[in-house]
């Protein structure tokens, strides 16, 4: 079997942070090669390099044995590589046929769009995917997610793709559609297309893949035929990083309950969540992206107020309908996305930190700049923020230092309950362990910390208890002692291995 596409020694770093190191990867005709790894392992970057979005710093890409340098996604598509993105890149207001042929539509001799041919070929492509029910004239925006995905696959085929890269294709599909998608993938494989299949869902991988490559922290852990693996082994390859490089949480006295959630829900994305957070405790919430963890945080913090259930702070039922109310109850939220909800990037460190406490810094309506600057200087010292001074613009700081500013800003409110969503995403190892040390120190002072993290080592290293969330609800709970990478990883990924949740603590 010759490889359709072959990558050798691929490395890539962004802004000095290494994302991929010396990756080798190949796909043969008529095979499904699964690419798995934790969030942030480097899968997306590898896909983007194959798709011509990013260029590798070092290493070679060969297509049919020929050395290639993809300057753009177009160049990659021209050599027969097509990517079906997780967030489908379609034009909702255009028709199915137009979407399939966007950018390479058949033309008449006059250079105008050849509509009859475009519609006919669109029909053929959809029929090849056994999607006879999709009308080529339908507006794509009116289609279901599953059908839109078929349009995207047809689009890939329309460019004579020989390699099809599918990035978490089933992430937003319901079970029935998943089965149909799997049969389409098998159909394409049998026609000789090489398929790179990225997914978190292990059952799919065992149902579909011929070979599996595992990435971890930007390095390749291994490649193996599916027959040599079982689920346990695959999970341990994905998550089994030594935890000693992280700063483990110091043992502290666990105090009284601070925050209790009882059957809390928000629409259909958060359902029946009950948990208790105690003083001095770090409660880790593990789960895949899209499992409802961030939505839970937003609900507790009042950004998307709860639609069902109750919230108790210090044993008293409270209503939280806005971030202001949450703040006044002593809750702070360090958001998942620093840029989106954490920082006002054009402003200085000083102005960002004071944003949550403007009222207490002001005499009348005027801000006391001396107090504000003192707060900023204290924070810079306390959190070890590396900056030129309190007036430096936040945008200019590195990711780790920006994250410390977000932390400083929220700790300025002197919260008792701290919700941290992906507290160390996208920051380097050094800053990571500093933030972990800080979390330990805060817990030791009696704060309750609710930590959402996609990185299992972080969850296992920092948490006193680990809750696992899936499909909007809690599916498992582990004590620190019994939380192993395998057990938590399995609860996150395996299909309905239902409740091994050991007794609700509330």
């Amino acid at each position, binding site marked *: 079997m010759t490889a359709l596409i072959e990558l050798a020694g691929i490395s890539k770093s962004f802004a000095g942070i290494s994302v991929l190191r010396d990756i080798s990867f190949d796909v043969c005709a008529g095979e499904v090669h699964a690419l798995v790894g934790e969030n942030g392992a480097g899968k997306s970057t590898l896909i983007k390099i194959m798709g011509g979005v990013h260029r590798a710093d070092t290493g070679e890409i060969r297509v049919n044995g020929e050395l290639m340098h993809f300057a753009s996604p177009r160049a990659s598509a021209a050599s027969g590589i097509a990517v079906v993105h997780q967030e489908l890149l379609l034009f909702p207001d255009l028709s199915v046929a137009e979407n399939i042929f966007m950018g390479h539509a058949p033309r008449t001799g006059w250079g105008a769009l050849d509509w009859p041919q475009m519609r006919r070929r669109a029909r053929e492509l959809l029929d090849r995917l056994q999607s006879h029910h999709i009308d080529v004239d339908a507006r794509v925006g009116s289609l279901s997610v599953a059908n839109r995905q078929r349009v995207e696959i047809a689009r890939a085929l329309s460019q004579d793709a020989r390699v099809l890269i599918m990035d978490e294709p089933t992430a937003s599909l319901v079970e029935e559609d998943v089965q149909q998608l799997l049969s389409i993938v098998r159909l394409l494989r049998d026609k000789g297309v090489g398929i790179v299949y990225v997914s978190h869902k292990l059952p799919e991988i065992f149902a579909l893949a011929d070979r599996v490559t595992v990435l971890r922290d930007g390095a390749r852990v291994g490649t193996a035929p599916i027959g040599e693996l079982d689920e346990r082994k695959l999970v341990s390859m994905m998550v089994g990083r030594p935890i000693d490089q992280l700063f483990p949480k110091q043992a502290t006295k666990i105090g009284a309950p601070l925050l209790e959630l009882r059957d809390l829900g928000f629409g259909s994305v958060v359902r029946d969540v009950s948990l208790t957070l105690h003083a001095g405790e770090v409660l880790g919430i593990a789960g895949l992206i899209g499992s409802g963890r961030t939505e839970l945080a937003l609900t507790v913090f009042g950004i998307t107020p709860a639609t069902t259930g109750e919230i108790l702070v210090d044993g008293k039922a409270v209503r939280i309908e806005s971030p202001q109310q949450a703040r006044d109850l002593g809750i702070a939220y360090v958001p998942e996305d620093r840029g989106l*909800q954490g920082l006002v*990037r054009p402003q200085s460190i000083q102005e960002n930190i004071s944003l949550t406490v403007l009222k207490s810094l002001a005499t009348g309506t005027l801000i006391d700049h001396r107090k504000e600057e003192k707060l900023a200087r204290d924070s810079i010292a306390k959190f070890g923020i590396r900056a030129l001074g309190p007036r430096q613009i936040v945008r200019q700081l590195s990711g780790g230092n920006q994250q410390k500013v977000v932390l400083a800003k929220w700790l300025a409110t002197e919260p008792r309950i701290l919700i941290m969503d992906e507290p160390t995403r996208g920051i380097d190892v050094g800053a990571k362990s500093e933030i972990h040390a800080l979390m330990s120190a805060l817990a030791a002072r009696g704060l309750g910390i609710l930590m959402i993290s996609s990185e299992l080592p972080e969850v296992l290293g920092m948490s006193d208890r680990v809750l696992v969330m899936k499909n909007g609800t809690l599916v498992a709970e582990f004590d620190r002692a019994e939380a192993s990478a395998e057990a938590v990883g399995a609860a996150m990924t395996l299909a309905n291995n239902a409740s091994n949740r050991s007794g609700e603590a509330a």
Partner: protein
Amino acid sequence: MAVAAAIQRRSAASRLVEAYGQELVVLGAIIALFVIVGTVNPRFLSENNLINIFSGNAYIAVAAIGMSLVIISGNIDVSVGSLIGVLATIAGTLAVQGYPIWVAWTVPVLVGMAINACVGALIAYFRIPSIVVTLGMLSILKGGLISITAGTWITGMPPEFFIAQARFFGIPAPVYFMVVLTVVMALWMRYAGLGRAIYAVGGNAEAARASGLYPERICVAAFAMHGFFAGIAALLFATQLQVIQSTVPPNLELTVITASVIGGVSILGGTGTVIGSTLAAILFACISSALVFLNVSAYWLRAVLGLLILATVLADMARRRRHRVAGRV
């Protein structure tokens, strides 16, 4: 230690440039223009011309203060020219009809605040983009004004109405308005909680909301204040000549927006100062006057302003890129 001291020194000087870079550039341009044009044609520096430049255009600078607030808050207002026309007409009409002068002076300001508070509320609570709301407002105000006045000029105001023609210590009143309002607002934006909140909402409304601010109220407040400055601008405009034309200078809103942008207010919101916008308004007035003294057709003014906008944006991007590389620690 020596290195640290050097960094400290460098940052003291560069901090000024970084914080007020655009303002310094505009100020430099004004000074250069005075030196160059004054050398070529000394009459450019005559008292009469200076009064023309500063006093005749003060209302643009005042309107640009409010516009800067709106743009910093992450919005835009393309209707301010028509609003100034309407408010000036209200002032003149009240004065002609014999209402006390203080009524003729205060009513337009209050009306301006009320109208723009409504505009701000539409934007904030119904989540309609500001460009859409203010485009609508532009048509309503302009159409309404022309229909009601039928394009006639208002004359016959009592002499004490003409506040813009008053002088104190030889300096025309509009100059005092421009300077005092700019200084007060510059300090307010820097020291008041609401001023800070306007920057935060314009820089990142979601982060501001998560921090416990109320972006909707802040948007309404920014627009209401903008209405206040439009009201003052309308008074200065209405009282500088003996007649009030129901057609304000065409493209006034563009001139006002341009002043804000060239003064360093980011069109994306979140950064800029009112000092910059006032300096930029003065710069326009200088350029427009200089063209006359250099015997260049006044029609070139628009083209020159356009070039200025592009040059400013390019310079701004270049500066940001340099700082992004140098400032990362």
